[in-house]
C-alpha cells in the first residue's frame, strides 16, 4: 500500500470493547449478552461535542485507522481518518465499532451462546441494520456522548448512517451517507443471494455447524469472489488485469489462466481466513431486509432531522448506482433538509470510497469544517 508510514510515524491503536445485557432486537428476540468491539482515534473534548461515528461496510471491522501493534497495514479507512485528514483526529474524536452479527470482536453467530456454552451458529437471531445501530447508540451513551458531530460511512456503512438519522433524528449534527441506498434493489439482493447459496452449497457448512470441524472454505471463497466483482468496475478490472495470463507452470485443467482469475482466488482465500461464513449469511441478509423507511417515502422520516447531509455517489459504481443516492437527496429536498450532493468522477466502481479517496476526502473535510457555522 502506498500510504504505509515508516514505523516511527505509525500511530498505534488498541481494540476496546463494551458489553451489556438483555438487548431487545427488532424481531422480538433477546440477546442475553452483547459485546461490541470498537476503536477510537483522537480525543473527546470537554463538552463531548466532537465525536464522529464511522460505520463500516459489509466485511469491514472496527479497525478503521492507525495500526495495531506490530501491524504493517493500517485500518481500512486510514486514508480518511487521522491527523490533518478528512476526519481530522486533531479536532475530532472518531469512533468505529464492529457491527452486531459480525465476526471481528462483536457478538455474532460465531460467539459463544451463554445458554449452551457453544457457538450460536444458526441459533443466532436475525439481527437487522436497526439492531446494529441500536447497539452503537448504547456504545455512544456509554462513552457519554449525547449528540454526535457526525455519522459517516459507505455502502452498508451508509445504510447504518441512514438508520441513525431515522432512529435517532436528534442525535447528530450532520451525516455523510456514501455510495449507499435506502433499500436494496432486486439486483443487489440477487448478488447477495448468490453469495449465500455458495456458502450453503458447501457441504462443510453443515447447516452452520462447522466450528468444531473444517470451515466452508470453498463456499465462502466463491461468495467473496462474486462480491469482489460487484465492488469493481469493468474499467478498473480492464486496467488492473487486461487479458494478461498468469506465468506459472500449472498444467491442471481449468487452473487460473488469467490474472483476474488468480486475483479473485487470492481475495477469496484471504477472506476465509478472517471472516465467518455464518456472519456472511446474517449480515448480507440484514442488508437485504433493510428498508430505512419501511416502504414509505423516505422524506416522511426526514422531517424531524436537525442534521445537514453530505451525500456522495461514484460515477463507476454500478452496485450502488447514483440514482439510489439521489433518492436520499430527493427525500432531503422534500423535507427541507439542507443537503450537499455530488457524484464523484471515479474509476474504481463501488470500491471507490475505499480506494479513490482524494476528492471524497476534500469534500468531507470541508463539509465537516463548516457544520457548525450555518445555523439551520
Amino acid at each position, binding site marked *: 500500500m502506498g500510504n504505509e508510514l515508516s514505523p516511527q510515524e505509525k500511530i498505534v491503536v488498541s481494540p476496546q470493547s463494551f458489553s451489556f445485557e438483555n438487548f431487545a432486537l427488532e424481531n422480538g428476540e433477546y440477546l442475553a449478552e452483547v459485546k461490541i468491539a470498537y476503536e477510537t482515534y483522537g480525543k473527546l473534548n470537554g463538552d463531548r461535542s466532537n465525536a464522529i461515528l464511522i460505520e463500516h461496510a459489509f466485511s469491514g471491522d472496527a479497525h478503521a485507522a492507525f495500526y495495531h501493534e506490530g501491524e504493517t497495514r493500517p485500518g481500512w479507512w486510514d486514508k480518511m481518518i487521522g491527523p490533518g485528514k478528512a476526519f481530522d483526529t486533531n479536532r475530532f474524536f472518531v469512533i468505529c465499532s464492529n457491527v452486531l452479527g459480525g465476526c471481528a470482536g462483536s457478538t455474532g453467530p460465531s460467539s459463544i451462546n451463554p445458554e449452551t456454552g457453544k457457538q450460536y451458529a444458526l441459533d443466532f437471531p436475525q439481527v437487522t441494520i436497526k439492531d446494529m445501530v441500536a447497539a452503537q447508540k448504547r456504545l455512544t451513551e456509554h462513552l457519554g456522548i449525547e449528540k454526535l458531530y457526525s455519522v459517516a460511512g459507505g455502502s452498508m456503512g451508509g445504510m447504518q448512517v441512514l438508520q441513525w438519522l431515522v432512529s435517532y433524528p436528534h442525535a447528530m449534527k450532520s451525516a455523510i451517507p456514501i455510495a449507499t441506498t435506502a433499500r436494496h434493489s432486486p439486483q443487489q439482493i440477487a448478488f447477495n443471494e448468490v453469495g449465500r447459496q455458495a456458502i450453503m452449497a458447501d457441504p462443510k457448512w453443515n447447516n452452520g455447524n462447522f466450528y468444531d470441524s473444517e470451515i466452508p472454505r470453498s463456499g465462502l471463497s466463491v461468495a467473496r469472489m462474486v462480491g469482489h466483482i460487484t465492488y469493481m468496475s469493468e474499467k478498473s478490472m480492464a486496467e488492473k488485469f487486461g487479458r494478461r495470463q498468469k506465468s506459472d507452470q500449472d498444467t491442471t485443467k481449468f487452473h487460473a489462466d488469467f490474472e483476474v482469475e488468480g486475483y479473485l482466488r487470492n481475495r477469496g482465500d484471504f477472506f476465509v481466513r478472517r471472516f465467518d461464513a455464518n456472519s456472511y449469511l446474517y449480515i448480507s441478509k440484514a442488508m437485504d431486509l433493510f428498508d430505512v423507511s419501511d416502504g414509505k417515502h423516505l422524506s416522511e422520516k426526514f422531517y424531524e432531522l436537525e442534521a*445537514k447531509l*453530505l451525500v456522495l455517489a461514484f460515477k463507476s459504481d454500478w452496485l450502488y448506482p447514483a440514482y439510489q443516492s439521489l433518492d436520499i*437527496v*430527493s427525500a432531503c*429536498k*422534500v423535507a*427541507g433538509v*439542507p*443537503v*450537499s*450532493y*455530488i*457524484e464523484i*468522477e471515479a474509476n474504481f466502481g463501488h470500491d471507490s470510497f475505499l480506494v479513490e479517496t482524494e*476528492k471524497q476526502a*476534500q*469534500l468531507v473535510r*470541508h*463539509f465537516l*469544517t*463548516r457544520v457548525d*457555522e*450555518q*445555523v*439551520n
Partner: protein
Amino acid sequence: MELPIQELQTERIDYRIILNLVEPKSRVLDMGCGDGELLYLLNQNLATRSQGIEIDHDQIMQSVERGINVLLGDLDSGLTDFKDNSFDYVILNNALQELRYPDDVIKDALRVGRRLIVGFPNFAYYKARLQFFFSGRTPVTPSLPFAWYESPNLHLLTIEDFKEYCRKRKYRILSERFVRNQKEISFRPNLLAQWGIFLITR
C-alpha cells in the same frame, strides 16, 4: 430593512444588488450557485438558510469549501422534489439565457419560491445594437462575451423582452435594477444597461 450597500464585502455589483433585495433570515435557493460566493455573502450578512444547485464539479467543491449546501444538478430539472413555497427567494442570476426551457424553469422557480430574483445580460444594450447594425455580426460585449460558436447562451433577451414576458405571464415585478460598467443606472435601461436584475412574484 436594506443593508447599507457599501458594508458588503464584495466588488460585484450584481451581488450587492441581490443582497439588497433579500430580507434577513430568508430561505434562499440559488440556481447555478457557481463557487457559492453569493450564498456565502447572504448567509454571512443576512443569516439566510441557503441551498445551491450547480452542475460544475469544481464549482461544487468550492461551494462546499465555503460551507454552502450544494446539489449537483442541471437547472432545467433541478427543482423537482422541492415542495411549493420551500423558499422565500429563488435566485437565477446569469443563468436564464443558458436554460433550455426558461419559461418552465421560471414557472417552477415561482412554485418552490415565493419570489424570484432574475439577473441577465441585456441584449439591447446600445453597444450590442451598434455592433449588430454596423458590422452585421452577432454582438460580442463584456456582458455577452462569447462568439456564436462557443456561446452557452441559448435564449438572448432584452430588458423590454423580460418586462413583456412578465406582463404576459401575469408575474408581478416588485423591483427592477439596472447595471452598466459595475454601476447602477436607471435612465433608459433597455438602451443603456448591460444587466437587468428583477425581483418578481406570482
